[in-house]
């Protein structure tokens, strides 16, 4: 904390005291307002500040402030662009906010300072119509090029039924068709060099190697990749917009479907932020149940990755074994939650129900069987010399590049950096568990794979600890804002009955404020930044997903390799399209 204020004071001294307004959000991340003229120097200064530079642009997003009532003394603004920077040395976040006025405001781009700002700024432009001056390629990123309006603006409808019937008249069809025509220049690529014409290969959106609806345009010289441009947004379902419509409670199922391999882990990221806003402290039993389910899902997610990665390289059988083991995990999830991939099991202040009788037996069956299988898979895939030949030395990035591009999770640890948010910024009681952070040194596809395989062992350790040390107690916090609300006094007095009735029908009203909680999800750092305007719905939900920056980095690490290597790289990056597009 001390250091954070030093940084803020330092910023104030160099950039002028009048432009910085401090704000104290619920999550205690130091936050300050900076005029748009000063944002580039401020970010530059934070990035180069010694001894603990804020070298990692964690997130960048917009907020439409026009309908907001509880602004907590913030400077007047119609729109806000927020920057979230992180310092690994200091283990601290800092949040910068730029107030903007006007219908379609502009501000300077920081894409020259942080490489991964490029896509984030494009997303803000796409969602809010805020333009970034000096951005190299400001173009819609998630919505279709021909889309009218900017979805996250408050005036944009959230449902198709509010938009009038869909019509595709001839001119519109022609326009849409024309927009689909591929022009290399629009994608920032050249059709030919001095001595050669390039071949453009369109991979996706329907392609067995892209693991979902991802399109990658490859600029090829023979089989060598000169450039690659991913097109994302095919899986965009407006999860952030939905957050402004669904009540705090009914939004939980939507989170399940963000990283759809992570299951309840998404619930956790969302609920930690909600519980911070509501001031709920959950009982130990809840924490351990949550950790156990999350780690089971981490194993399940890594198993899917493991199998499909081998399949990407042409090894067709392992995926069946791994899915069989994943099925074992789903049996546990089903026994506990009733659901499988999207159990929608965590609730505000707890979980939906207590663990069923006999849960320990199903978990134990799994923890007994899995080590032997995992060892077998390891020798089947990881020790296969063809597999090594296809992955070693492919898709390398250094630690510095990883931080610059915003890589988190196993991809970061594969560069030899021992960083895990579960250890470094413990949440949900992870500090109580005994586990290691697996790392590898080279940052290539093989090392990313090694780290993930090792992570499954560590997750198994955590699950075993949960199994042996499940605390007694309630599965839900004793707090009026939990969902579904507690019923214990409702039969005694009418006021509590009314509150209960409102809590069930409208959902809880979460106190005004802003909070974020960062978790180590299956693929990297995942967090939900929530703004409550003292209402039954969130005012703004910002989902920071790990796959988004990872996908942004793919062109950078695949240049110079061949088409076959691109598949290794995509597989080793381990993205989920829903996690990219939200």
């Amino acid at each position, binding site marked *: 904390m001390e250091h954070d204020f030093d940084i803020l004071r330092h910023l104030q001294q160099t950039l002028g005291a009048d432009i910085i307004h401090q704000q104290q959000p619920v999550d205690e991340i130091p936050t300050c307002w900076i005029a748009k003229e000063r944002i580039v120097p401020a970010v530059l200064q934070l990035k180069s500040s010694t001894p603990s530079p804020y070298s990692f642009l964690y997130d960048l997003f917009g907020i439409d402030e026009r309908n907001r009532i509880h602004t907590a003394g913030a400077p007047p603004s119609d729109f806000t662009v927020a920057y979230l920077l992180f310092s690994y040395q200091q283990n601290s976040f800092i949040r910068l906010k730029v107030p903007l006025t006007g219908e379609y405001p502009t501000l300077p781009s920081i894409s020259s300072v942080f490489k991964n700002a490029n896509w984030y700024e494009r997303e803000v432009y796409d969602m809010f119509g805020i333009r970034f001056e000096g951005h190299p390629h400001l173009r819609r990123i998630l919505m279709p090029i021909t889309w009218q309006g900017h979805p996250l603006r408050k005036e944009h409808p959230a449902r198709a039924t509010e938009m009038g019937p869909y019509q595709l008249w001839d001119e519109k069809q022609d326009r849409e068709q024309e927009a689909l025509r591929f022009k290399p220049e629009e994608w920032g690529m050249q059709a030919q060099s001095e001595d050669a014409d390039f*071949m453009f*290969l*369109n991979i996706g959106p329907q*392609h*067995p*190697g892209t693991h979902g609806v991802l399109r990658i345009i490859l600029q090829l010289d023979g*089989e060598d990749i000169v450039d690659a441009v991913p097109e994302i947004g095919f899986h965009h379902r407006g999860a952030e917009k939905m957050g402004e419509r669904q009540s705090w409670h009914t939004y939980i199922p939507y989170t399940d479907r963000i990283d759809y391999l992570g299951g309840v882990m998404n619930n956790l990221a969302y609920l930690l932020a909600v519980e911070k806003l509501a001031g709920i402290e959950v009982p130990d039993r809840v924490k351990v149940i949550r950790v156990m389910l999350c780690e089971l899902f981490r194993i399940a997610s890594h198993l899917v990755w493991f199998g499909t990665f*081998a*399949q*990407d*390289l*042409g*090894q*067709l*059988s392992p995926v*069946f*074994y791994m899915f*069989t083991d994943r099925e074992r995990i789903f049996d546990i999830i089903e026994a506990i939650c009733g659901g499988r991939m999207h159990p929608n099991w965590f609730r505000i202040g707890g979980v939906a129900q207590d663990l069923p009788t006999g849960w320990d037996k199903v978990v134990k069956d799994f923890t007994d069987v899995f080590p032997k299988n995992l060892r077998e898979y390891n020798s089947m895939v990881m020790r*296969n010399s*063809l*597999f090594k*030949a*296809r992955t070693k030395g492919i898709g390398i990035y250094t630690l510095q590049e990883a931080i610059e591009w915003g890589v988190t999770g196993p991809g970061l640890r594969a560069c030899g950096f021992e960083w895990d948010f579960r250890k470094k910024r413990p949440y949900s009681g992870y500090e109580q568990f005994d586990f290691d952070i697996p790392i590898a040194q080279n940052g290539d596809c093989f090392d990313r794979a090694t780290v993930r395989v090792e992570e499954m062992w560590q997750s198994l350790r955590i699950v075993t600890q949960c199994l042996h040390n499940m605390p007694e107690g309630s599965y839900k916090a004793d707090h009026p804002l939990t969902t579904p609300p507690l019923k214990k006094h409702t039969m005694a007095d009418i006021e509590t009955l009314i509150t209960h009735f409102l809590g069930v029908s409208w959902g809880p009203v979460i106190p005004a404020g802003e909070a974020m909680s960062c978790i180590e999800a299956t693929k990297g750092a995942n967090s939900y930044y929530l703004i409550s305007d003292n209402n039954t719905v969130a005012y703004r939900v910002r989902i920071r997903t790990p796959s988004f920056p990872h996908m942004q980095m793919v062109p950078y690490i695949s240049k110079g390799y*061949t*088409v*076959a*290597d691109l*598949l290794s790289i995509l597989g080793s990056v381990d993205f989920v399209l829903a996690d990219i597009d939200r």
Partner: protein
Amino acid sequence: MYSTLLAFDWLFVIEKLVLIVGIVSISLVIAMYETWAERKVAAIMQDRRGPMRAGPMGLLQPLADGLKLFMKEEIIPNTSNRILFILGPCLAMLAAMMTSAVIPWGGKIDVFGREVSLQIADINIGILYVFAVVSMGVFGIMIGGWASNNKFSLMAALRGASQAISYELPMGLSLIALLMLTGSLKLSVIVGQQLDGVWNVVYQPLGFLIFLICAFAECNRTPFDLPEAENELNFGYHQEYSSMKLGFFLFAEYINMFISSAIMATLFFGGYDIPFVNDAQLTEKVGLNLMALFQGGVLFAKIAGFIFLFMWVRWTIPRFRYDQLMNLGWKKLVPLALINMIVTAAVVLWLKK
């Protein structure tokens, strides 16, 4: 003049025609059941059941698949070259079928007092013929891939062509060593020698290994299935094909596998030689026809073993990258085959002296 025509051995023509029809249909049936076997082998290796609905153990599955392929709509892309697009699968199929002509499928049989050889054409350049026809097979891939006018197909066709050419070289070199030992290009002679002596694989283990690897590459099987790498190139050169034209490509692949196995069995594993048995003595005991049946059965057992090996490998290991494939072919297999050839030559010369 009429008398000369009539003097022509018509029975010979009929005999060969029956043999051709028989062997072609056997090849087709075997290719069909290879698809079934492939699915069953894959299923067993992946803890699954495999086809089991059509007939007992799914044995009618290939028929259902064939029927499905026939019923599918025949699509020829507008932008393709129509003639070449049709020619591609035809060539692939043709080349695959032609190879079976020179393989001795068994000894002689006795049909109504007439001795009939179970080989369509016992030509004296048998192996060269096989090579010539197999090299033609790559035209099917090239023409099909190019005529599709699709970038994935084109890349696959390029990969396939360069792969086939690269691997034919070590394949041929490994055979030269074998030919030094046999002294004949005639397949019947090569088998005949192994009937009396030991199998060639004992003399030429390295040669066999190289030949085996090259056979995998020639058949586009994993780990050399780059031309149809599903995850990279969307099934490669046959991406635009549908209906029976696709069926032809798939069939050609399975027939190639069958023929490769047959050739490996013939050249290196004694052909129709029944192991641990003196064939000549047994023939006297059981008669010519029963013996031919035994011999055919043994040959097919050997072929089935190789086909299983093909499938086993396919469902076990990942595939090479293009440059790794080329490195293996040119930098490892070609030198190895050359060394094998020179050592064999030296030993043969030394023994003769």
